[in-house]
């Protein structure tokens, strides 16, 4: 290893041909966080949102059908798996694929909600997420074109392989579009959807991909 990895030296690199997964202190911490929250999504019982009627002491509880809850739990678990994959993968193209999967799953978590505001927000967010695949996949392809490899381990251990700054910027732009933590203004409306543990998966996955893309950009 020529250069120092800001995420710590990997304990273990699992290789499948040229695709690889690596576990450094940084990626392992993020992976465990994603795993814990996925387990929460599996075992947690969903909240039942209660609205207080303004100016009185009446309230009404929102009913959510079982089929809808099951679908949202499934999407939340899928989102957890996609985030786990994005946390530990050492292949840049797989990284971008996992990131776009996180984007789809975030839309999916709230898609079953029968609320027009939520669905509108999810639709607009979906449009942003879909158009963000252009810079995302574009960055991965440009990295392969300029350096000849997609392996992050290769990119940081060989000092001769330099990724141009503009390509890194494209990668970050793509991840931002897929729902990186501070940029989800469009997602705020989506959080009106009832069903707490599943909606929180949206924000958690955004935080996780934000933390991971910092490491990726510093490493490559």
């Amino acid at each position: 290893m020529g250069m120092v990895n800001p995420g710590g030296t990997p304990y273990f690199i699992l290789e499948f041909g040229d695709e690889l997964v690596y576990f450094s202190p940084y990626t392992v911490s993020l992976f465990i966080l994603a795993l814990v929250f996925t387990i929460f999504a599996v075992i947690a019982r969903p909240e039942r949102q209660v609205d207080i009627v303004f100016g009185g002491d009446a309230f009404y509880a929102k009913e959510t059908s079982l089929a809808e809850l099951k679908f949202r739990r499934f999407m939340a678990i899928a989102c957890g798996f996609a985030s786990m994959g994005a946390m530990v993968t050492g292949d840049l193209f797989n990284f971008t694929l996992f990131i776009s999967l996180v984007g789809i799953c975030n839309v999916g978590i709230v898609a079953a909600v029968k609320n027009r505001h939520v669905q509108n927000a999810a639709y607009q967010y979906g449009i942003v997420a879909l158009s963000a695949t252009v810079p995302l996949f574009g960055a991965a392809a440009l990295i392969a074109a300029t350096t000849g490899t997609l392996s992050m381990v290769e990119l940081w251990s060989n000092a001769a392989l330099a990724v141009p700054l503009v390509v890194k910027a494209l990668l970050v732009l793509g991840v931002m579009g897929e729902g990186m933590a501070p940029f989800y203004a469009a997602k705020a409306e989506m959080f009106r959807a009832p069903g707490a543990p599943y909606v929180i998966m949206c924000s958690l996955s955004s935080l996780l991909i934000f933390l991971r893309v910092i490491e990726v950009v510093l490493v490559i």
Partner: protein
Amino acid sequence: MWQEYSIGLLLVFIAGVIAFFALVVEKDDLHRLLLLDLVEVPSLGIIALLGTDLAEALILPGLVVGIAELLALSQIYVTKEGLKERKVQGLNIEVIQADAPLIISVLLICYGVILSGFTGGGVAGLGVVFYFMARGHREHFELLEMASGISWAIWIFAFFVFMFIPEYWLLALFMAAIGILLKVIVKMSLVGTMWGDGNG
């Protein structure tokens, strides 16, 4: 070679700018969904410019993710706009109500089986889709799903043979070709039946 790559990149960049500009100008939600498909093309173009085997391997997952997002978004659009399923009972065109669909489908399926693999599956699947769309249908969806699942398992098993006992590559090749052929046919025919009277 680098010069060709740069020219290609420039063209893709221009295409991307045009597509994104259209997306910004367009205000209708459905039209934006259609334009998104156009936006996807430059991203596949950038990958294709690599011009290697790797590019081919990368385009497929990129395409699949793009289609998945497009399907999810169109589903949201349908629920958001409260569109009800419209019943379509076959196509009301004279040629299609005669024997033409049967002949065309049989030709397409035969050609698809000869081609085999992913392309063959696509061609044969198109034949089946056409037949189902032209005629009404009463099929067992569970059976089709099961056939699709089993052929997928054969395909994956063939990959394991490639990896662990490469001496049997010919057997694995046949298994992979037939598995993917059946899988693509069945999946596409399901698309054809879903379009029918909405019980799928």
